[in-house]
């Protein structure tokens, strides 16, 4: 997200305030994956993350006048997503002492997910569930959505050095957590591909 796209965000927000469907559609397209990633980092379940991300766009539009810096719409939206996801967790009466159930199996598996992917997914969720929430957000936005350190820093309101640090520790923890029985299979798979 460059300075240009931030300027675009401000213009799109201004048009969305007036009910411009196309402008808001561009904003949704631009941030839907990041919104899902942040919601997933908080909630840990695909279905709930999906609901939280979708609802957040409606809430954001309803309260778009409260976005004081339209050029920072992305950061404001992700805060909305995070709050929405936390509210969803509270509504479901999940005890605060419980670990974030990233390792919980989804009630409805994603379509076409084969057994191996499902196994990797569960291992990954389990590993992610052991990370602090902010590290989950950073690693998902960076490694899943391909955002740069600077973009994550701007959107999450963190210093860039802190983002790098979170990413480093998150990857290290994931590497350690995943270095179980699956790591050999994956190494074998990678070797076979090469």
């Amino acid at each position, binding site marked *: 997200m460059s300075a240009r796209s931030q300027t675009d965000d401000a213009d799109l927000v201004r048009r*969305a*305030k*007036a*009910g*411009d*469907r196309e402008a*808001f*559609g561009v904003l*949704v*397209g631009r941030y*839907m*994956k990041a919104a*899902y*990633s942040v919601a*997933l980092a908080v909630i840990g379940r*695909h279905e709930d993350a*999906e609901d939280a*991300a*979708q*609802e957040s*766009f*409606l809430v954001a*539009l*309803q309260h778009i006048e409260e976005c004081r810096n339209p050029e920072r719409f992305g950061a404001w939206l992700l805060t909305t997503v995070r709050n929405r996801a936390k509210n969803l967790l509270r509504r479901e009466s999940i005890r605060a002492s419980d670990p974030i159930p990233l390792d919980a199996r989804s009630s409805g598996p*994603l*379509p*076409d*997910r084969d057994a191996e*992917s499902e196994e*990797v*997914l569960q291992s*990954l*969720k389990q590993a992610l569930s052991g990370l602090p929430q902010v590290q989950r957000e950073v*690693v*998902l936005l*960076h*490694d*899943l*959505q*391909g955002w740069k350190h600077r973009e994550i820093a701007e959107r999450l309101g963190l210093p860039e050095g802190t983002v790098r640090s979170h990413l480093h520790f998150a*990857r290290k923890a*994931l*590497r350690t957590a*995943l270095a179980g029985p699956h790591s050999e299979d*994956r190494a074998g798979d990678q070797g076979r591909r090469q």
Partner: protein
Amino acid sequence: MSNEPNRLLEVLDPGHTDPGYWSRFHGRVMSVVSAELARRRLLEQELTVSQVVQAWWRVLVPAAALAAALAGGLLFEGRAAMETAPLGIEELLVAGLEGEPIPAVLISEEAPDEATMFAVIER
């Protein structure tokens, strides 16, 4: 793990195994927000208070200026008429009265005799 988007984390992306996922997600969001967008478009079309005031301002100011100019003109015209045709106190006292408010004998240059005067007064 490299600096590239991690391939392992791709399994967390619903679009990884379902290419149409994000398109449907976008469609669902746009469907959910359509009523709010319509409400905002409607509000945008309605006139704001300031717009109404501005519209009135454009009509009222010239109309008020024209009325003031006309009133001023009429005022000066009336004064000029008063200056050219001054009324005597007698004319003002009898203005609008019908008949002969001041008997002719009183207006006459010649002084009336006593009998005539009594007759006028008794009348």
